[in-house]
């Protein structure tokens, strides 16, 4: 498992492997530096699959786990939307510092829960290249943040935010890494347990990123204008989204991606009905991802259906409905429906019958590696331009040949994170209806379910 992996162009890259594995493997893997205390090494330039940074996991790792257990024993504190968004509150130095220290405590606690989870997984799973990369990244980040001294001034906060930005950047490629690991390890663990693991990892990740990005955004706004009072547009995170605009934008992106591989095949238009003009507060990037996935599935299915039957394509009906607490999007297509044998596995990360998985193994992994490379290069350039980094954006614009099979399970996690729902009804041979219920986030006294993850 740990050892070598080959990129598409044949270059061989040595992966980091555990010290124990190194000792026991017949071919010794070379790595520079000693296996001693790595914790103080800078994390800039930390790359996956590179031979450079020595492993976090040394022979002493086992005995140094106490700190982690201490953090893992603490419960994560529930976060109210008001706290997150600071709706209507005037920002002051003290409030910013308070927020910074809250993040400084919460991040390691939540990470510790997930690291602890990973430590409990079977050895064979975490030993997988990709999963062990994620494990080491998490552990390293955990140590970095927990060692940051208590923040007392705005300058301290400035340094803290720099660290946070780097962390966000380095964690960008975690999702593809996890996905690769899941695909490769699907025979090693029962699928329910895998689904639960992915579920908690992703939900925790969302919560940490939202906390982090929100704090950074508030810091930036405050530095620009000390009298800034967050109203509807809070930092870069909670936006007033226009339902129809988002759908149209996602459709444009999804359509061009699908068209690029199915070149002469007509892709159906969208027809809107319902409360098309409504606006509501939501995390725009999440919504774009979910709707993007849904439309991608629809367009892809439409193209396949056209190729198989030559039937003219009727437009996709998009219904938007406004309710007191929710907004509902319904996407109705006539693209042939979902084959019944796939339906039991629609929402699972670990896909059904073994044959499908082997097939995936074979086709997917080199492409996923490519996406990781792509992401890292993109992250480096974005860091240089200090652009806001969102791993979701990269996933949203990924090549359509990259069929991860994770679109629906991931969308479900994102939708449910904020109290929404997603459901699919298939009419075999005719088409599909997808229902996306979004909880409006304008109500600031809501408690976001961000505890215990």
């Amino acid at each position: 498992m740990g050892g070598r992996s080959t990129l598409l162009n044949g270059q061989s890259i040595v992966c980091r492997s555990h010290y124990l594995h190194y000792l026991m493997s017949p071919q010794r893997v070379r790595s520079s530096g000693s296996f001693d205390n790595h914790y103080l090494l800078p994390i800039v330039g930390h790359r996956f699959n590179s031979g450079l940074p020595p492993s976090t996991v040394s022979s002493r790792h086992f005995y140094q786990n106490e700190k982690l257990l201490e953090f893992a024993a603490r419960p994560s504190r529930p976060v109210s939307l008001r706290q997150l968004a600071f709706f209507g509150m005037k920002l002051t130095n003290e409030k910013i510092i308070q927020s910074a220290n809250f993040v400084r405590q919460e991040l390691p606690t939540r990470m510790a829960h997930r690291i602890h989870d990973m430590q409990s997984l079977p050895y064979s799973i975490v030993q997988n290249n990709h999963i062990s990369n994620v494990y080491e990244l998490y552990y390293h980040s955990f140590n970095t943040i927990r060692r940051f001294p208590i923040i007392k001034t705005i300058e301290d906060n400035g340094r803290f935010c720099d660290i946070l930005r780097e962390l966000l950047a380095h964690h960008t490629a975690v999702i593809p890494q996890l996905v690769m690991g899941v695909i490769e390890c699907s025979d090693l663990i029962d699928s329910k347990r895998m689904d639960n693991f992915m579920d908690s990892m992703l939900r925790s990740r969302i919560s940490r990123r939202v906390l982090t990005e929100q704090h950074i955004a508030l810091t930036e706004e405050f530095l620009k204008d000390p009298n800034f009072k967050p109203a509807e547009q809070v930092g870069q995170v909670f936006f007033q989204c226009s339902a129809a605009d988002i759908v149209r934008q996602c459709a444009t992106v999804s359509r061009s991606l699908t068209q690029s591989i199915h070149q002469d095949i007509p892709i159906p238009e969208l027809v809107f009905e319902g409360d098309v003009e409504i606006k509501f507060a939501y995390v725009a990037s999440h919504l774009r991802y979910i709707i993007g996935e849904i439309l991608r599935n629809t367009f892809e299915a439409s193209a396949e259906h056209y190729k198989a039957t030559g039937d003219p394509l009727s437009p996709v009906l998009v219904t938007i409905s406004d309710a007191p607490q929710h907004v509902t999007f319904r996407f109705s297509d006539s693209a042939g429906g979902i084959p019944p044998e796939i339906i039991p596995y629609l929402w699972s990360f670990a896909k059904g019958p073994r044959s499908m998985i082997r097939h995936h193994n074979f086709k997917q992994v080199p492409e996923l590696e490519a996406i990781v490379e792509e992401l890292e290069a993109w992250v480096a350039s974005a860091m240089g331009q200090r652009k806001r980094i969102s791993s979701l954006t990269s996933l949203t614009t990924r090549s359509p040949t990259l069929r991860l099979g994770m679109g629906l399970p991931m969308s479900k996690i994102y939708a449910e994170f904020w109290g929404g729902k997603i459901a699919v009804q298939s009419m075999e041979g005719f088409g599909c209806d997808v229902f996306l219920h979004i909880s409006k986030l304008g109500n600031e006294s809501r408690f976001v379910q961000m505890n215990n993850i």
Partner: protein
Amino acid sequence: MQMRQRLRLAIGKSWSIRWMSTCPRQQSKFSLEEPIFVNIDVSEVIASYARTVTTKTSSFDFQDLIQLGRPPIASDALIQNARMVREIILSSLSRRIVAVRNLPYIMVLNPNISKIYNIYLHSVNVVYESGTKLETKEDNDRFVQALQNMIETHTNAIPTLAKGFAESQTYISSDETNRFLDVHLHDRIGTRLLAKHHIALTKQSAQDARRDARFIGLVDTNLSPAELCREITWFLSDVCDLQYGMRPSMTIDVGEDVRVAYIPEHLEYILTELLKNSFRATIEQFLGMTPASQYRIKHGLQREVVPHPVAVTIVRTANGVVIRLRDRGGGIQEDNLKRIWGYSESTFEEEERDGFKTLNSPPPSVTGTGGSTMAGLGYGLPLSRAYAEYFGGSIDLETCFGWGTDVYLHLISRL
């Protein structure tokens, strides 16, 4: 004959009094020719049959209904079928009796529930007796008579049972009620289906029967869901007209020509229930009577200019058919979504207004007696689901609150 003699012997003995005291003193009000006898024979029958299949699965597939081929059916095949039907029905009835016996004592003293108990005992008697010898055509005819009697006796059982449960709410939780009724209705559907099917097969195989290649017993091999929807809409329009002064409408978007083999009674019941809900919601939404419409009025959102037609999509699948009903009735509120599938009387009470009871009566062809025996029970949806699920189908519901509801009916029928 034998049973009456036994009863005369037994009357003097104390254990018979003990047996009979489990029933209330008043006689059941059904027009039975003779009072019900509870004696050891029947109890043994029940005990032995009740030991069979205990899970909630049907004892037969859709395929089993048509495996004998098209009528006329050879006499010995019919006799064989009669024997099988008798076994399954006796098991089913016996299980029901045991289930009622397991209800709290006080509940079975409720006259409605004890009425049900008695008619089940009666039916076990009748079906058992009439089929002890099944070898000739005459035997079959006698058996068919008994089946007919059973069906008629049980026709009004559901409202009675519902009333009994409603009155017993203090003695049983709603979860247990739901569980009991789920299994009870499931068994009842199977029993009646088998009985009516066998009766129909017999009639269709008789010497002087009119040959209609389309029907195999109860199964219509060329059923058109589209036509059925139109008939039901026509019937329901009248009812809505009476209630609201407006007529709903329906369009068949896809699947006008789809034909399927299924049991018309079942499909008719389900579609009537679903269309009734859709029409009612559509009209009320239009008239501003629903909470969804009131929200829209308050926030100045777009409203319907006319009550929008209910859109029906019918699609033939590998295993059967799927029918989607799409309405613009404002959708269903989150808290109600779970309640609508339960058997609680209270939902009904809240929702129903006076004139509504007419809207809830299914067409006479379903009830057979022309009476509104199913009127306003709040059992419509769970019963529809029981019909759909009997052969492995389902009813799923997705709602866009504020806009409308989509209902997906999957039916399994393999020809």
